[in-house]
């Protein structure tokens, strides 16, 4: 029993269809820039290196690592991202310092061991019209929870100023911000190829 002409043509057409679909889908919607766990390889390679096994999601002690969803971009479905609303990243000056569980668990070196400034995953950005300290009253929560000296400095009348170069993007301030909606958000840092 050989291959019939019909099933041959059907198979070739299916292959072409799958290939075209994989070319088309990522262009249908703009892919979001995600905040990756510490030590992630450059975004150009992350989708290939990550096998989407979810080990990092399971071991994160604060539950900050979640799976990227379809809305984050079709090429990123199932890869890990940091959702600071679930928890902060403790890689810098936190529980995970020197013991990065997500990096240790990663089987494919999509997350790699890095130190010092390379641990920077992003930076916090303040929307002053929403900030309690800048608008109506006294609030020092972000300054109090920040583990990085100098990342948040206070003006003379106790209003916070965020230093993008010093901030590592751990997200403690965003997680703790009492404003409703939150006056802070975490933006990703473009990583270079390591």
């Amino acid at each position, binding site marked *: 029993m050989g291959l019939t002409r019909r099933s041959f043509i059907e198979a070739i057409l299916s292959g072409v269809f799958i290939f075209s679909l994989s070319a088309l889908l990522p262009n249908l919607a703009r892919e979001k820039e995600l905040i990756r766990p510490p030590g992630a390889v450059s975004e150009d390679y992350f989708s*290939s290196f990550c096998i989407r096994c979810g080990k990092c999601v399971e071991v994160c002690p604060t539950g900050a690592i979640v799976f990227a969803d*379809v809305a984050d971009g079709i090429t990123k479905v199932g890869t890990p991202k940091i959702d600071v609303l679930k928890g902060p990243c403790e890689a810098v000056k936190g529980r995970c310092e020197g013991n990065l569980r997500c990096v240790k668990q990663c*089987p494919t070196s999509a997350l790699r061991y890095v130190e010092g400034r390379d641990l920077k995953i992003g930076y916090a950005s303040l929307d002053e019209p929403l900030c309690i300290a800048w608008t109506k009253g006294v609030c020092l929560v972000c300054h109090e929870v920040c583990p990085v000296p100098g990342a948040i400095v206070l003006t003379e009348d106790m209003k916070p100023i965020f230093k993008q170069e010093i901030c590592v993007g751990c997200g403690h301030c965003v997680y703790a911000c009492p404003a409703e909606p939150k006056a802070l958000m975490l933006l990703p840092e473009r990583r270079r190829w390591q």
Partner: protein
Amino acid sequence: MRRWRVQVARGALQASIIALISVGPWFGLANGSICTLTVGGITLSCPLGFLQGSIGANAILIGIIGSIAIPILIALFVGRIFCGWICPASLGFELSRNLRKSGKPTTSTGRNPIQFLGVVLIGAFLASSALFHYPFFCIFCPVGVICRNVISYTQYGSLGMDVIFIPAFILLEAVFARWCPEICPLGAMTTIFSRFNFLSPRVNEAKCIKCQICNRVCPMGVQVLEGKNLNSCSKCLKCSENCPTDAIDWTAGRKPP
């Protein structure tokens, strides 16, 4: 004689693997999903994920090169046992295929004896990884989608939007009834490796009454009676359980004489 014991065992094994993936991390029993699973100090990885990742990254994913060896060895010697006993989607697919096939003595395999379709699709997925640098199959792979959503539900209590792929697949399967035997790239890859396949159904000619039930119940489109397409056998034992005269033997060995 119609029996269910093996089918219940299969369901139980698949369910316990899902349970292991979902609550295993809490007790330190397991870590990861079927894509890369560490259990009892042994790590197993998906060979198709490895290939797509390596091609997309222009680098060999050295970290999992050792852990794809065991799945490949299993495939070499017992073929598609993964499909029958481990794959968490297999029972769902079989049930929806049965919805369509009920009563109709169809075997899909006549159309596609060497899983040509699955092999072409593997080629398309690998070409897509090379050009667009992401593992396209992993996005909607039924195994991956189920594992990811099980993990996300147990870890932080929500499901991803990709969970929609599961009912979509079930519906498509009820209409086309071809995923496991012909389309699934994971299954096609296992069939490619299924070279020695030491465990195959063998018809005892003395007892056989040529009723064709074995061919009809086979979820993988193996032609048990003719001994054809045995590389696709997922060792689900449905043929022996449904055989009215118990004419199917499972003896280890290469091929029927």
